[in-house]
């Protein structure tokens, strides 16, 4: 089996599953309990937090655990809206965000907030000038993704940081769910960003766990009220087995990151340069530095995306239509729509997404199957 759908989810690493099992079996005390058994769990919780903080260059108190990317996005946005409501009601984001951001914004709109969606260019990227023009005295939040989940466009975070430095009071959130471990740390952990959200299962940790970086001193309202865990910001008994497993998965992910990224980049380009030679292929994630090393989105004219997915599946190759979250709803890609891509071609789009375990041999096998399927699809045109 060739698994090229790592932006949907990744396989939990065996070492990570091992940690999950050991912590479940041996350290199941409640970290809030006063007795020694709870204390051990608390120490493991904080050691996991410290490891994650060290790995991304943050402080211990700046790491907060969540249930995943969707919660993190909801929290950064709604938590800011609640905490900063007296300072304004205007929110800015991009037209190509994940639904966790987009639909949070839409919910807030119904509550009376105003939302600006920044347009994107042909590569799916916003412009810093548009951002600057959109900022109002009432703006309280700017939310931009690091890497687009559908086509892999990397937003111009350095330029956005320059703009945001002129507006130090506005919260800036980066959804980095697709960006961790992809050689983008300097862009994501810049000196201006306030909130960054992550999902564990995108980097070989279990489901149902994620974390948020929150810059020290920035205020956010809790969405989960309760027993006061996570510095009174996110209540609920801590999911310690998953937290420890995620700390391990992150360490493994970031070991030799540069070499792993380079390999994914080479695999992506090997496929890209092969399929771009075919007349009826359109490539959305081009061979440009503004695209992430692991995502390749393309279309075969006249063939529906789901047909392409199932055709590859018969050859034991797993790819997806543009995003797993919307792929069962038969809607065209929202990112491609925002890029003003013609609807006819957008419905033919599919996505390959790599991880650090994919190999060049798999790329060659993919290309071989591609040639075969391309011939078959010719009959459909």
């Amino acid at each position: 089996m060739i698994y090229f759908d790592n932006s949907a989810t990744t396989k939990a690493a065996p070492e990570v599953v091992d940690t999950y099992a050991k912590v479940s079996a041996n350290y199941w005390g409640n970290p809030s309990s006063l007795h020694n058994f709870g204390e051990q769990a608390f120490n493991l919780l904080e050691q996991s937090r410290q490891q994650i903080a060290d790995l991304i260059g943050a402080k211990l108190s700046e790491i907060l655990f969540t249930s995943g990317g969707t919660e993190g996005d909801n929290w950064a946005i709604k938590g800011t809206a609640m905490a900063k409501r007296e300072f304004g009601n205007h929110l800015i984001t991009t037209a190509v965000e994940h639904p966790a951001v987009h639909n949070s914004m839409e919910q807030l709109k119904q509550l009376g907030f105003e939302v600006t969606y920044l347009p994107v260019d042909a590569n799916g990227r916003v412009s810093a000038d548009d951002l600057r023009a959109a900022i109002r005295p009432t703006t309280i939040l700017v939310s931009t993704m690091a890497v687009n989940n559908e086509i892999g466009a990397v937003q111009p975070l350095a330029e956005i940081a320059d703009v945001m430095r002129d507006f130090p009071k506005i919260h800036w959130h980066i959804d980095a769910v697709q960006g961790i471990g992809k050689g983008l740390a300097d862009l994501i952990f810049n000196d201006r960003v306030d909130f960054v959200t992550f999902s564990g299962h995108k980097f070989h940790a279990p489901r149902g766990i994620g974390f948020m970086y929150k810059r020290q001193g920035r205020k956010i309202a809790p969405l989960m009220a309760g027993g006061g865990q996570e510095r009174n910001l996110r209540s609920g008994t801590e999911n310690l087995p998953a937290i420890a497993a995620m700390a391990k998965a992150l360490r493994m992910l970031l070991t030799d990151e540069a070499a792993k990224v380079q390999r994914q980049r080479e695999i992506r380009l090997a496929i890209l340069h092969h399929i771009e030679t075919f007349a009826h292929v359109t490539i959305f994630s081009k061979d440009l530095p503004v695209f992430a090393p692991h995502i390749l989105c393309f279309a075969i004219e006249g063939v529906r995306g789901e047909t392409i997915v199932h055709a590859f599946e018969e050859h034991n190759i797993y790819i997806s239509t543009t995003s797993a979250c919307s792929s069962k709803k038969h809607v065209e890609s929202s990112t491609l729509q925002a890029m003003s891509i013609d609807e006819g071609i957008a419905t033919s789009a599919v996505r390959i997404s790599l991880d650090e375990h994919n190999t060049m041999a798999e790329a060659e096998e993919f290309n071989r199957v591609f040639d075969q399927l391309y011939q078959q699809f010719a009959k459909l045109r």
Partner: protein
Amino acid sequence: MEYSEIMVRYGELSTKGKNKKDFIKQLGHNVRKALSSFESLEVRAQHDRLHVTLNGADSAAVMDRLKGVFGIENFSPAVKVDKDLDTIKAAVVAMAKEDFQPGMTFKINTRRQDKEFAYDTYQLNDLLGGAVLDNVPGIQVQMKHPDLELRVEIRMNGAFISGQTIQGAGGLPVGTGGKAVMMLSGGIDSPVASYYGMRRGVKLDMVHFFSPPYTSEQALAKAKELTAKLAKYSGGIQFIQVPFTKIQETIKEAVPEGYLMTIQRRMMLRLAVAVAEMRHAKGIFNGESLGQVASQTLESMAAINDVTSMPILRPLLSMDKTEIIKVAEDIDTYDLSILPYEDCCTIFTPPAPKTRPDLKKSRKFEKNIDVEGLMKEALDGITITEIRPGDNFLNQNEDVFAELL
């Protein structure tokens, strides 16, 4: 860049006249202690500067340790090259390129110890400045307050080139200011006060009051862990735990509620003074900040201070809580301090302690207890632990967990 030595400049001690020798000796000792885990190093404390020869040791790790040593004004990593003009030129240009950012200005500052060297300082400034101008596009010369000062020293044993200057911890070398006892609770304030005490050169012994089962083992471990954090400023700290349970129980029975806190504090101070006398210390430090809580009003201080004539030093006296928190974060004690374990100060706190206790009444109520007997018993039960930087007390499983993570 591969550095060959770190040049360390002294702080205030340069001005200390005849005591200067002792200061330099103590600083050399403290630097050696702080760097003891690097085997290849040589430390030479000279009259004008201290030199750390790296012999291949990791310069970033060495500089990180130096940042925690009091008595250092600043330091610069330097490269040693042969005393040959072209070699020196190449090294100066390489260093300029490494530190240069668009728009920066620079100057060359040459010192010549080796008077036999073929060029004098003016010629060297001129030749080396010219080389930088030719090879670093966009850089400009500025004599007053340049962004980049490239220092070149022609010594007998080679030419030393340094660029950046890194701020040291300032203050005076720990040990030059005598010895005192610190009353360490485990809260936010006392570690910060300890930091300031050590920064003025005072060697501190920590006194911690321990009241099981009213305070937990974790509260004790937390105080020890805080001491381990602070130990990096002095190399090692003696931690003295004093059993306080019986004294607290006795006071609770015998003293009216409004005076519980005052009498407890008087007993704590007496014990701290007794420990100080035993250990030939000359003063008591604490983390009090005027008006912060009931025990820290001027009236309370008068009622508590009454038990001794030994100097009580309060480095945080006039600081606001927010300022104290900021320093606690900077010295990395804040996260530990806010761990929620009951400590000796909170557990027997009455709902409404007197903010203006009366001195005469304090003395009178104290007659209800056997001060001498209780003190003797407590002093007989003290435990002393030598704590070193990086020692671990709170999380005994750290290594087991590291395997899992």
